[in-house]
């Protein structure tokens, strides 16, 4: 498996400015989301997740990724979408955010796409139904809408939430 550990923040910043961007597309509650491929370490099958009591609600728990214990976030919960049982096609997308390795539970990973920058529009909550803070933009591709996620925001909020959740 890939052992990519280095991560250039420049990719993220210049991505919008460049001509096109390679993204990994995955599904959460029948919507298509995408993150820059440079952020994705690997995509693994769903495995047994250990619940950590007292963790923020969106944090499903932790898994053992080759000896490293990493947190796993459920994007459905993160986006406050209705929760659903995980299926056989559910996957954990392992990404690097803010120097941490975290796993994101998604309903399924469909493809890797090249998105033209000029096809990206600014986010609108009306289109997706999730908080526009998490979005970098929306790309239209072959009649589909693909939501580009702002991973840093996803994590920042999770951390914020866990501070509030601190109890015991």
């Amino acid at each position, binding site marked *: 498996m890939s052992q990519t550990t280095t991560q250039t923040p420049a990719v993220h910043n210049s991505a919008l400015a460049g001509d096109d961007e390679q993204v990994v597309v995955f599904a959460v509650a029948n919507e298509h989301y995408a993150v820059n491929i440079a952020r994705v370490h690997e995509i693994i099958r769903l495995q*047994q997740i*250990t*619940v*950590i*009591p*007292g*963790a*923020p609600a969106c*944090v499903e728990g*932790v*898994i*053992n990724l*080759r*000896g*490293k*214990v*990493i*947190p796993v976030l459920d994007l459905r919960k993160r986006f406050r979408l209705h929760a659903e049982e995980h299926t056989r096609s559910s996957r954990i997308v392992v990404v690097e955010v803010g120097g*941490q390795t*975290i796993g994101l539970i998604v309903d399924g990973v469909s493809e890797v796409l090249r998105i033209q920058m000029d096809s990206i529009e600014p986010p609108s909550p009306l289109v997706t139904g999730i908080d526009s803070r998490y979005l970098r933009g929306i790309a239209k591709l072959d009649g589909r809408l693909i939501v580009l996620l702002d991973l840093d925001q996803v*994590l920042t909020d*999770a*951390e914020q939430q*866990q*501070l509030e*959740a*601190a*109890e*015991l």
Partner: protein
Amino acid sequence: MTMKGQPLTFDATPEELVLFMSEGEEQLELLAQDIIRMEQEGDGNTELLQEIFRAAHTLKGSSGAIGHQRMARLTHAAESVLDQVRHHQLPVSTILVDLLLKSLDALRQLLDEVTAGIESGVAIEDLSAALIALANGQQPAPDLPAAPDLPASLENPAAAAIAVPVAEPPPAEVVPPRSQFVSPADFMRELQVWRIECAIDPQFPLPSARALQIVLASESLGAVAQSSPARAAIEAGEVTMGTPVIVWLALAEGITNERIRERLERIPDVQVTAIVPPEATESATGYQGVQDLSVSTGRSGAAGRSGAAEEAALILTLRAQIAADCVLPAPRALQVVLACSQIGEVLTSDPSDAVIEDGKVMAGSVVTVTFRASDPAAANEDRLRAICAKISEVTVIDVTLSTPDLDLADAVATGESIRTAPAIVPAAPRAADSVPAPRAAPPEGGRSAASPVPGVLSPPPETTVRPAVAENNVSPGVTHPENEQTRTATPVQAPRMVRIDVERLDALMNLIGELVIGRTRLSRIGANLVGHTDDLQLMEDLTETSRHIARISDDLQDQVMRSRMLPIESVFSKFPRLVRDLAQRVNKKVEFIVEGKDTELDRSVAEQISDPIIHLLRNAIDHGLETPEERRAAGKSEVGQVRLSARHEENQIVIDVDDDGRGIIPERIKAKAVAKGLLTADAASRISDREAVEMIFAPGFSTAEQVSDISGRGVGMDIVRTNVERLNGSIAVETEPGQGSRFTIRLPLTLAIIRALLVSVAGQTYAIPLTSVVEALRIQQEDLRSVNHHLAIELRGQVLPLMRLADIFKQSHNAATTTAMTRQFVVAIRWGDRRCGLIVESLIGEQEIVIKPLGKLFRNVRGISGGAVLGDGQVAPILDVAALIKYVIANERTSGEYELNLETAAKGARV
């Protein structure tokens, strides 16, 4: 003059600096230990004195090589004192040891400058001056300033008050084998060494400039063998005003007192205060080399030659190759030369000592050392190889016995240039100091037949060709290393150690974790296949293979764990110094015994166990041991004994700190505890002696009758216990009044892997560190009591407050678990003095777990200290016992009158 905070640059790559740092640490550690030993054993142990000198010399060489001038200078000063000590010209005294130890403190700070990159402001001038004064037979200034920023415990105000044994005149009769470097030219020639002392007008503002002029002028008269201050210090402009300049002048033909005086006093502001001619040098102190050289002078010329002929059979030549990837080749070369000096007297080396000390040695080059064995019986090849095998990154190519050639000696003596070395002489001795001799001909099997030595043996002053020498050294070593090795008849003892980054081992550990997961999957697949296939052979193969992989991954994990271990010596090594300083300060006589230094433990534990041990040692010396008077009165030896020992017991490391002092008296502890309000008088009368002694671990307790500046720093035994428990260890005390005390620390071998009790709650597994577990028991519903609405059970006459783990973590138990509540378990846990019980659904068992941090997202999660990677790759939360118990305590407080005594508990249960 140097200034604090000035940025430093070193003449080395970052890798070299890292290596220098770690080797420097090692040398300093070694020196600290050996100097303490030297103080105890006196100057009788010649091997020890040699070892100390070598360590100082190596440190000087390597600090010079990276260009840390101040460090090199201070080590140089220390080295010259140590050189006298090993030649029994300076007695081992308290003042000497104090001075050397202070120098080590300063050197440590200088070493730290390498990482910090800025100057620490440590003043070395006074220390070097004091050392040099000592070497010159003077008493150092009584109020020698300690290096700044030293920990208070290391300062030693008592030192000045101690009677100072003035250096005795050196015994004249014995001249032990020298290990300073003398080239054959120097050795065989009539050597005349003059000692010239000059004073620079103390008003003159630039003494360094004048000092340099003195040295340069002396060079015009002959060869400057040594100067004080050293040449490097002079060139760095560090001569202080009023410092006398001393020059040892060799090879000064036809020189006279008048000529010297005339030449040197031409320099303004300079006055020659003393000139000691060679005849008289023998009795002069200062430059030790001079004396030995003078001895050889006595049988110079023909006599010297016949002397050489008599010792013909004892001259050996060693060739050793420095590894091509060696980062600091110069210190390695120096080590080779020093190794030879252990066996005999080094006649010549190539590269020369001076070149080596300048750091101009290339990796991959060959070091050739010719030396005269002082003891023919001891000078066998095996011994030499054994000594060299300890030097990392160096491979001995060969050792050859040579008959010194009289023609060569003749040639040298008459100053003729040597065109060819006779074939029988392998690597003919060269005046390495001066010769830009390219090692042109690759030696064949150690014989440099007809190797041309074009250089003329000129007197040894500074040469400008050293870089060339260094470059030339590369050619034979780099181009034909394999050839040379394959030609060696005996197998080469290559060094078998490598340094490795701990992070790399951690990465390895993680990969092994992955392997473990893979292995678990494999066996699960195997299990799933049962019944799905009829191919029994295939099934068997699969089972066999997965077992095989399981075994290998277990072994692999074990091996990596082991490679993270280091001997506890790394922790213990600094204690003799500490004990010495403490004993001196409280005026007690202490014999400090260290046992089990080789006991290995994980690096992470080693890093954190030092403080608790220091605390115990302090206690033993300050409170445990009596004063010499008290001991005499009690019929004991005046010298108290403190013993520190380490050993392995099962999967633990056990560290004992013993003393034969007054022991802990239970009555005193009780009285103190009552006085401090920790116990009621009533309770104190009821507790056993053993319990009373355990009170020393109670928070806020300290038995010192007077607050001493050693132990009375508000840090009590409770902190020691907390620190030990943080490492998942435990501490216990045994004591016998009048006989002494023994503190025993038990620690897991590693912090990364601990033994834990696995329990299950609401379908999830949790790990409880076994060190916190008192016991685990099965309970019935009717065993439960309610004390002010809190659950509790009675356990051996005491009330144990209980918590449901599921409630703490707000995990809803499903119907099945609720109904099964009649069958449950209690795990009694302990943190410090507090105990409580956790109600769990089932006990899974004990297991070794690998502890992993959970990361930022779980920073505020309470009650869980980390994640445990279990044997099957699953993660289990590890309970934070301290936090859980604090939670119980907090709950008790909020509920008001929560009383922990049996009567109320029983009443509550009946209500």
